[in-house]
């Protein structure tokens, strides 16, 4: 009950912060990369009521417009991450772009088992296609800060557990309510060739036979229903089976099926299955899809290409074996995949593939450009091509009057390491970020946050000693929560617990900074989970900070217990 109180308080707070309705914004003197048409070297984009009202070299800002001087800036359609876990409370680990064979996600299986929710499905957790991401999505702008600040405005989102990952949604990366964020729901069914040990199917063999059997069973159910609807008398009634029912749209090609398949053999398996059941299939991951361009083209199957490029993570050791040549080749070839798909005429869009730093998305897109992809096509792969694959190109993916005002205003070359995105519009709502003073190698703030491929190991910072026990006061709207924070510290890594009326939160992998600390954690309250990020400064035994919650930031203060 207390949780409810808290949640509703957060919701109320965010309502008041909603953008003013009706006022227009005009970006003037900007280079406008429309994607659907020629780039306008100097022009204006007008945004009103969440839509692009006008775009062109000769467009004048309306009288009421808030004008943004776009001199030296480029306006892009908001970038689309064509497969992510954005908006999901727990960041489920995704099958990394690892080595060959990294697409399956054995971990996913265990999680599926762990997360086996109460369900009346006839099927084991992991083979329940009726699972829908929309039930797990959380509203709120701040959860998307890091990716939105990189220029992303929309994403396909779905969990990554089980064989059937369930139904995805396309969401805008801002919004006060889940319903308001949704662009398309359900979008697609998502399938991983994972295994879910502990019963049938318990092996990769069973994964395929179980999928097939369910497809056939769904076909039969549909037939049966038709017969029953026509004349129920004298016919046994068909069962109501929500799992099988969820498959009917994909068997009727009304809903696409996204297969997570990175390696050649996984992609072949997906293509075979798609062919056998005449599915409207999409390959996600697709890092070896360049080997199968002929088949992809002939089956007219697009690729949501992961930009999570594999790289060696293992440290060197004279006692270790050399890596397999096949692994070395795999890694070397992946950045060239996009160019090869483009050349072969296979439709593709970029996706983050589980990259944790949004910045790496662009770094790796730039590598794809080095690998032979033209910049135009690369931009398209994160805008209009994605919209086309998602069948949202009538409203998303390019800068055209009447389309949704999802825009990214970029300073410097979008593929260069000094790229900076001062303004992002989502549904016409402006998000602004200030460029921070450059440090060292002239990298943008995103790079500083994200680290990733380009970041070199920073020198161990001079960190404060924050270990200890604190009495907390959390200033949630309409209610003040109290609690205790216990921090342990080793170097710049902190762990511990936070206890409030709502329960105990375990802290691991937090970071101490020069003047304070931060950590992210998952609070489990009343059966649901909530991702929080706690940032605070500590001086003279006083703690001051903010807890970022899915519902917005909450101030927190505290004192250290001597």
């Amino acid at each position, binding site marked *: 009950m207390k949780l409810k109180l808290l949640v509703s308080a957060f919701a109320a707070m965010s309502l008041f912060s909603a953008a003013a309705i009706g006022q227009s914004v005009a970006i003037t003197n900007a280079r406008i990369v429309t994607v659907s048409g020629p780039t306008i070297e100097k022009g204006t984009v007008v945004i009103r009521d969440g839509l692009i009202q006008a775009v062109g070299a000769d467009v004048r800002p309306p009288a009421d417009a808030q004008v943004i001087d776009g001199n030296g800036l480029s306006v892009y359609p908001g970038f689309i991450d064509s497969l992510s876990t954005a908006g999901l409370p727990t960041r489920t680990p995704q099958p990394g772009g690892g080595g060959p064979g990294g697409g399956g996600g054995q971990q996913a299986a265990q999680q599926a088992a762990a997360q086996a929710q109460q369900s009346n499905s006839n099927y084991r957790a992991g083979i329940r296609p009726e699972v829908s991401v929309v039930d797990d999505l959380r509203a709120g702008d701040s959860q998307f800060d890091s990716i939105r600040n990189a220029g992303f405005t929309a994403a396909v989102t779905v969990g990554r557990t089980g064989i059937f990952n369930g139904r995805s949604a396309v969401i805008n990366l801002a919004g006060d309510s889940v319903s308001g964020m949704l662009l398309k729901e359900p979008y697609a069914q998502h399938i991983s060739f994972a295994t879910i040990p502990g019963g049938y199917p318990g092996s990769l063999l069973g994964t395929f036979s179980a999928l097939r059997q369910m497809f056939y069973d769904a076909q039969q159910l549909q037939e049966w229903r038709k017969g029953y609807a026509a004349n129920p008398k004298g016919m046994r009634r068909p069962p109501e089976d929500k799992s099988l029912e969820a498959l009917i749209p994909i068997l009727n090609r009304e809903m696409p099926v996204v297969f997570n398949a990175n390696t050649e053999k996984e992609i072949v398996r997906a293509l075979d299955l798609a062919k056998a059941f005449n599915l409207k299939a999409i390959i996600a991951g697709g890092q070896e899809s360049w080997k199968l361009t002929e088949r992809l083209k002939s089956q007219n199957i697009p690729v949501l290409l992961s930009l999570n490029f594999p790289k060696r993570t293992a440290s060197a050791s004279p*006692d270790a074996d050399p890596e*397999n040549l096949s692994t070395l080749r795999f890694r070397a070839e992946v950045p060239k995949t996009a160019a090869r798909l483009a050349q072969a005429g296979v439709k593709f869009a970029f996706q983050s593939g589980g990259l944790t730093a949004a910045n790496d998305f662009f770094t790796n897109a730039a590598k794809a450009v080095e690998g032979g992809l033209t910049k135009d096509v690369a931009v398209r792969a994160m805008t209009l091509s994605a919209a086309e694959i998602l069948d949202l190109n009538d409203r998303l993916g390019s800068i055209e009057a009447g389309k949704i005002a999802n825009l990214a205003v970029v300073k410097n070359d979008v593929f260069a390491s000094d790229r900076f995105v001062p303004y992002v519009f989502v549904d016409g709502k402006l998000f602004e970020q200030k460029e921070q003073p450059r440090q060292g190698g002239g990298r943008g703030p995103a790079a500083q946050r994200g680290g990733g491929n380009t970041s070199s190991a920073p020198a161990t910072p001079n960190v404060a000693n924050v270990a200890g026990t604190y009495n907390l006061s959390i200033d949630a709207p309409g209610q003040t929560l109290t609690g205790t924070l216990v921090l342990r510290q080793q170097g710049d890594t902190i762990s511990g617990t936070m206890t409030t009326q709502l329960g105990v939160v375990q802290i691991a992998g937090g970071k101490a900074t020069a003047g304070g600390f931060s950590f992210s954690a998952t609070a489990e309250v009343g059966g649901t989970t909530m991702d929080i990020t706690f940032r605070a400064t500590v001086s003279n035994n006083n703690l001051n900070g903010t807890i970022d919650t899915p519902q917005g930031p909450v101030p927190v203060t505290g004192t250290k217990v001597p």
Partner: protein
Amino acid sequence: MKAKVECKKAKRFIDLCSFVFICGALFSVTAQSDGSQQNQTGRAGTFAITNARIFTVSGAVIENGTVVIQEGRIAAVGAGVSIPGGAERIDGKGLSIYPGMIDAGTNLGLAEIGQGANATLDTAEVGSMNANAKAIKAVNPHTSHVNVTRVNGITSVLSRPTGGIVSGQATLINLNGSTQAEMAVEPIAGLIVNFPRITQGGGGFGGGGGFGGGGQQIDFNEAVKRRDTQIDELKKLFRDAVNYGRAVEAYAKDKTLPAVPTNLGLEALIPYVRGEKTIFFTAERDRDIRAVAKFVGEMKIKGIILGGQEAWKSADELKKNNIPVIYTHIYSLPVREDDPYDSLFEAPAKMHQAGIKFAISTGDQGAEVRDLPYQAGIAGAFGLSREEALKSVTLYPAQILGVGDKMGSIEIGKMANVVVTDGDLLDPRTNVKYLFIEGRLLPLTSRHTELFDSFKERKSSEIIP
């Protein structure tokens, strides 16, 4: 009816053996063998195999020669030797005479049935330091593996314990005898040390025919630490044994010194740490083999590499420290995906080229030791000369095991472990015609021939509708 069949089969012995003796034994054979065959320890006598091609191994091949076997030893070898009166003559026309083969890396006699019958497994003792465990105390003279192996021309094996770091002491046995004592050539033939290394599946050479690798996965860095710790432990153990030996000796000379309480583990190590007896170190990778060589040099001990996949790469260190190799990987897959397909077939040839002393062994638990000749033959297909291939399973293992003066070749005075075949010893199509161990002529029967004889003429009484 059955007896008739078996007597027919036994006909080839009639010239040589007492008909009654052989058939008497075969009458007792049943379908489910009780292993009684192993009690047949053959017949001693003076034998002369004439007109045969003699592969002396130590010297040139002798065409149309004679080998005389007397009192368990080879009494004469040559083209024109005189045959003692009373000798049983075996016409060796069209046949070849070879020294019996020696497999220097088995667990034969310590493991009857690899899976599903733990009671028959005596390869690995509990704990990691078992210097005092002795294979000779567990070898089963009546294992069915003995006959099955020897009828293919393998007359002696080193049987060794596995597991832990110091597994115990191996034994060199002839494949004949009703007691361990009758079998033993060198009852204590060396110490087995699984040289600590970083490897998947808990290291060691253990398992043999079993399914290793199932153990708990450990982290690489942990494994490095564990190896380094284990090498330190091993060094400490060896130094302790040196000190223990010194103290025991001192006390023996001077009883006024404090008495040294007996420590079986250290006591067993004394001859090894003093370099008097040989230690077999299992090791596969170049770096581990080099580590063994370094260890051997440092500790001033006598070492042999057992396993030796990459031993050819460590030739310099092995030669410097006088370390031979017992190679056990003809029947292994190249470990790494990028290894050449023939890397483990070629290893013996490469060792030969590099001047490493080596022998080829099956490394088998027992049942498949009989493939030793074919394993050597395969090495012969991949760069090793046929002569060297033959030596690698006869004279070389004898020399490496320190018994080169008494077995491993057809030479006067050597133990009469002699095999007479109708073809190339290393060819799977070849049949062994006569088999002698320590001069005893053995029946060419085994659990397998018994079962064969029991069933080869079986007719069905079944009526299918």
